[in-house]
C-alpha cells in the first residue's frame, strides 16, 4: 500500500516543475508582467482549448495529425527494420546497400521539403514521405547495430545445440538486438513528430501544424501556444508508450528489474 503510494508520488514528482512553471506564468500574466499579445496566460490558453474542443476542430486536427504520423512511421519504420535485419544478417546485403544508405542518411531529410512539394504538392503523400524518411534511419541504424552487437559466443552456443537458422534468429539474435532496437524506436518517435509538424506548418490544409499557422494569420496567439503544448503532450505520450513496451519486453535486462 505505502509502496504503491510512494511510486505514485515518485511519478508525480516529474510533474512538479511543469506545474510550478504554469503557476508562475499565470501569476506573471495576471500581474501584467507578460503582455497578452506576446504570451497569453495559461487560463486564456485553457479557454482556447475548451472552445476548440467543443467545436470539434481540435479533435479532428489531432486525429488527422496522429494518423499521418503513424502511417508514416509504419511505412518508414518497417522498411528501416527490414533493411536493418537484412544488413545485419547478410554480409552481401550489407555491402550492397550500406554505403548508399549512409550517404542518404547524411542529408537532412527536412532539406527535401521543396523537392517533396514539387513532387507531391501539399497532399498526404508529401507528409507520409517525409515522416517515413525521417523515422527510417534511426530504426535502420539501431537495428543493424543491435544485430551486429549480439554476442558471437551465444550464437556459437546456439549452433552447438543444433538450433536452426529460424530458431537462432528468434531465440538468440532478435532478443539480443532488442535493447538497441528500442533506442532506435524512441529516437524515431521524436523525429516522427518533429517532421510532421514542420511539414504541416509549411504545407498543409489540415492538422495541428496547419491549425497553428491559421491561428497565426488571425493573431490568435492563445491557439498557437495551445498547439505547442499539445505537441509536447503528444511527444511525451509516444515516449511513455515506447518505454512501457520496453519495460515489458526487456524484463530480463538488469536495468529494468524492479526486484
Amino acid at each position, binding site marked *: 500500500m505505502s509502496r504503491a503510494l510512494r511510486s505514485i508520488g515518485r511519478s508525480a514528482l516529474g510533474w512538479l516543475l511543469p506545474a510550478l512553471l504554469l503557476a508562475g506564468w499565470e501569476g506573471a500574466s495576471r500581474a501584467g508582467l507578460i503582455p497578452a499579445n506576446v504570451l497569453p496566460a495559461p487560463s486564456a490558453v485553457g479557454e482556447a482549448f475548451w472552445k476548440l474542443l467543443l467545436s470539434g476542430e481540435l479533435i479532428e486536427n489531432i486525429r488527422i495529425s496522429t494518423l499521418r504520423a503513424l502511417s508514416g512511421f509504419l511505412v518508414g519504420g518497417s522498411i528501416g527494420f527490414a533493411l536493418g535485419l537484412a544488413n545485419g544478417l547478410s554480409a552481401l546485403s550489407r555491402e550492397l546497400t550500406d554505403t548508399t544508405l549512409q550517404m542518404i542518411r547524411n542529408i537532412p531529410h527536412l532539406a527535401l521539403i521543396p523537392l517533396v512539394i514539387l513532387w507531391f504538392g501539399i497532399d498526404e503523400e508529401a507528409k507520409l514521405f517525409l515522416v517515413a524518411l525521417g523515422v527510417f534511419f534511426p530504426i535502420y541504424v539501431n537495428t543493424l547495430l543491435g544485430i551486429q552487437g549480439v554476442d558471437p559466443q551465444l550464437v556459437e*552456443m546456439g549452433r552447438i545445440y543444433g538450433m536452426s537458422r529460424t530458431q537462432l534468429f528468434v*531465440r538468440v539474435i532478435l532478443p539480443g538486438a*532488442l535493447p538497441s532496437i528500442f533506442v532506435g524506436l524512441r529516437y524515431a518517435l521524436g523525429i516522427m513528430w518533429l517532421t510532421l509538424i514542420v511539414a504541416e506548418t509549411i504545407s498543409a490544409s489540415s492538422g495541428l501544424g496547419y491549425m497553428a499557422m491559421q491561428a497565426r494569420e488571425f493573431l490568435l496567439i492563445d491557439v498557437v501556444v495551445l498547439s505547442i503544448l499539445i505537441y509536447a503532450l503528444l511527444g511525451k505520450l509516444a515516449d511513455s508508450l515506447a518505454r512501457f513496451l520496453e519495460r515489458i519486453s526487456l524484463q*530480463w*535486462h538488469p536495468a529494468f*528489474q524492479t526486484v
Partner: protein
Amino acid sequence: MTAATVTARKSYSTTTPAYTPAPQGKVSFSFRNVAKQFGGKAVLQGINLDVYEGQFVAVIGKSGCGKSTLLRLLAGLDKPTSGEIVAGVLEDEQKRTRIMFQEPRLLPWARVAANVGVGLTGIEKGEAARKKSLEILAEVGLADRGGDWPSVLSGGQRQRVALARALVGHPSILALDEPLGALDALTRIEMQQLLERIWLAKKFTAVLVTHDVAEAVSLADRVIVIDSGRIALDLAIPVERPRRHASPELAFFERQILDQLYNR
C-alpha cells in the same frame, strides 16, 4: 619428446606407462593421426588417442599448447586439417557431444529453466522439455531457481545451469573447456565434487581441458599432457573414489605431471 614412459616409484606400483583400458571398455571416440593448422601454423600434430566409454579424461598443458583446439575438434566446432576423428558408435553420436565453456553462455533473456531447455533443441519440446529441465536443475542443486533470470545468479550457479543444459540431452560425450576456470577456489571445489557425482551417476565420457593439475588428478581416470601440439604424457590415475583433495597419492601423480610440464 614422445609419450614419456613413467616408471612406478615407491609403493605406487599401480602406475602404468600407458593407459590400459578397462577390460569391458568400448571405444567412445578416437583421434587418428589428427593435425590442425591455423594459417600455416601447426597447432596440433600427430594426435592418436582412443578414449573409452565412461572414461574421465583430463587434458592439460600450458596456454597455447593446443588443448582447447583438441576439444573444439572433438565437439565438431572445427574440422581437422588432416587425420580423422571417429566416434565410437553411430554417426548420430556427434550430435550428442556437448561442450561446456569457461563462460556459462546463458541467454540473458531466457529464464533459467528455458536456458536449460536449449539443451533439448530438436530432442524434446514444450511441457516435456520443461519437466526434464527442472529435473536436471534439481540434480545440480538449483531446484527452486527455474523461474529466475540468469542475471540474478552467482557465477557458480550460472555454471551449474550451463552444466544442466549440457546434460539434459543425455550426451554420451561431455567436453569441458576449463569450465571452472573463472570460479573462486571454494566454489571450484564444490563444482568439482558435483561434476564427479554427476559423472558417476550418468556414465558419460568426460573430457576436461584444464590448466589446474590438482583438478585434473582429483577428477580424472587418465591425464593427457599436451606440449607443443603433441601428446607428451598419457598417464592413468588409478586412485579409488571418492578421492580426497591433496592426499599423498594424488600428490604423487601431480608431481609427475608437473615434472613433465616443466621438463624436470
